[in-house]
């Protein structure tokens, strides 16, 4: 584990960015690029658009490190919110432009209702990824075994070296956490769900 606990790391990173340390920018990228890019990719389903959102998000953080308020949650959750906001903006821009932007597929649902539905689904998907990435490792490991490796809960229990009771508990708890991605309504540009500590 890192020597710096997350809140301390977050504050220090903010100070270093404010000071204009290029090395801090590199460390920021190393820590969050995978999160930003995969989330943007999940929402936009387009490699180039995800690259662009990644540039925009890091550009914004680098130019506005003071916009981060540690009282509102972790830097990770802030970066996730920024990514979501930029991605939604791109979806709307693509819709508004007659040629679309990076996302110009014809199978995209047209019209404002289709757009809102798409934003809602993309938001839930991105939030779900965030929840999976930040849930306790034992829960994530159980979900991965059951879902990706197609192990039943008895095999999952054996693989993890826990009781069958415990395996059932982890699968249920993991899905309960995940289900919160679906039930939260989208409110403006800052969806709840990223700020909670899981």
């Amino acid at each position: 584990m890192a020597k710096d606990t997350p809140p301390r790391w977050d504050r220090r990173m903010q100070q270093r960015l404010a000071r204009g340390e290029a090395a801090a920018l590199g460390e920021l990228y190393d820590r969050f690029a995978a999160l930003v890019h995969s989330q943007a990719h999940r929402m936009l389903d387009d490699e180039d658009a995800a690259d662009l959102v990644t540039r925009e998000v890091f550009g914004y953080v680098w130019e506005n490190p003071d916009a981060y308020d540690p009282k509102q949650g972790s830097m990770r959750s802030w970066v996730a919110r920024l990514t979501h906001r930029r991605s939604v903006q791109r979806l709307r821009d693509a819709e508004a432009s007659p040629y679309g932007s990076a996302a110009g597929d014809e199978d995209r649902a047209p019209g404002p209702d289709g757009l809102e539905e798409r934003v809602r689904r993309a938001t839930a998907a991105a939030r779900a990824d965030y929840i999976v990435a930040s849930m306790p490792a034992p829960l994530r490991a159980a979900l991965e075994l059951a879902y990706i490796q197609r192990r039943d809960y008895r095999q999952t229990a054996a693989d993890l070296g826990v009781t069958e009771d415990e395996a059932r508990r982890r699968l249920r708890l993991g899905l309960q956490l995940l289900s919160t991605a679906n039930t939260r309504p989208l409110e403006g540009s800052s969806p709840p769900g990223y700020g909670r500590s899981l």
Partner: protein
Amino acid sequence: MAPLSTPVLSHRVLKALLGAWALAACSAEETAAVEEHLTECAPCADEALRLRDAVGLLHTDRSLDLDPLLRSRVIEGCLSRRPARIPIPAWAAPYDAETARLDALLGDIGASEWHAPVRLRWFDGEQAVNRRTTVAGVIGHLMTVDGLVSTALGLDDPLGPGQRLHSPLERTETYWAAAYRPLTRTVREPWREQSHTLIRTVSFAGRGVAELSVPYGDFALPLQDSLLDRAFECWVHGGDIAAAVDYPYEAPSPSHLHRMIDLAVRMLPAALAERRRAGLAGPARHLVTAGSPGRSLHLEVEGLGGGDWYIALDSPAAVGSPGHTVAQVALDGVEFCRLVAGHTSPVEAAAGQEGDREAIRDVLFAAAALSRL
């Protein structure tokens, strides 16, 4: 064991099964029992629906590997919008890029792959030698040798305080021997932290430390060259690791590759002189006064990051010069680096050779002799 056909399970047990049920991870009998229960228990039916929807949010495709080139594009974009007040020195940029690239690879591999065998190869002056380790062992090796730069800067030595070991080989052997259990992925964090600390430290110190001497035991390098050398090693061993776990690994960016080639070329005349003293290279033919142009070999490196270099053959004090060329070697930039890393035999390197055969042989062997563990 519950009876096979109609298991009588309590509400509590069935509720606990809902997660496994939603993931289709229970037995057929349990599935039947849960589904029967759902027709008569509204709270469970409600939760079952929510959990089943949640399963729809999981996805199997591993997150796409990030394009390693994206990092420099994103950072350049940021710096053009707001220039850094404390920039990373240009000579530290290759180390920054290569450690980030290797770290990204390490982030993509699984826990078991850290134990994949890796054979580290180098050329000990006369022949190819190798040493077996694991992916985790390679990272330990990189960390302990990077530690030479750390200690030169007054930072902590990863080998612990009081160690005065300078030879990369000794440092690595000491580190490996001190690990009483096989190294695991836990070595990633201290390695990465040390590289981040190095980059931060040289950024603050800037030009003041560029020429600081970093001792390697039997030779020393100015810190800016040392960090470039570490970037080179990081790329080479990143390639070793990638090959061991069957991942692609590209060459460094052309400008960084160019700097790495240039460093090797600058080290060649001294390596040549050393081999000559050891009787491993032909005698000097034509000594000139220090700083004057001397007999030279024209190294033509093709591909991105390549260029033309003139290597003084008879003395490190002489200056390589196009007008005094007695031989020419042409090869690809990555291939030249593989030679310098001891990954290609000097006998097999070089696509094109022309001129003095002894000079060519001596330079190629001296290049291979730059390699080490």
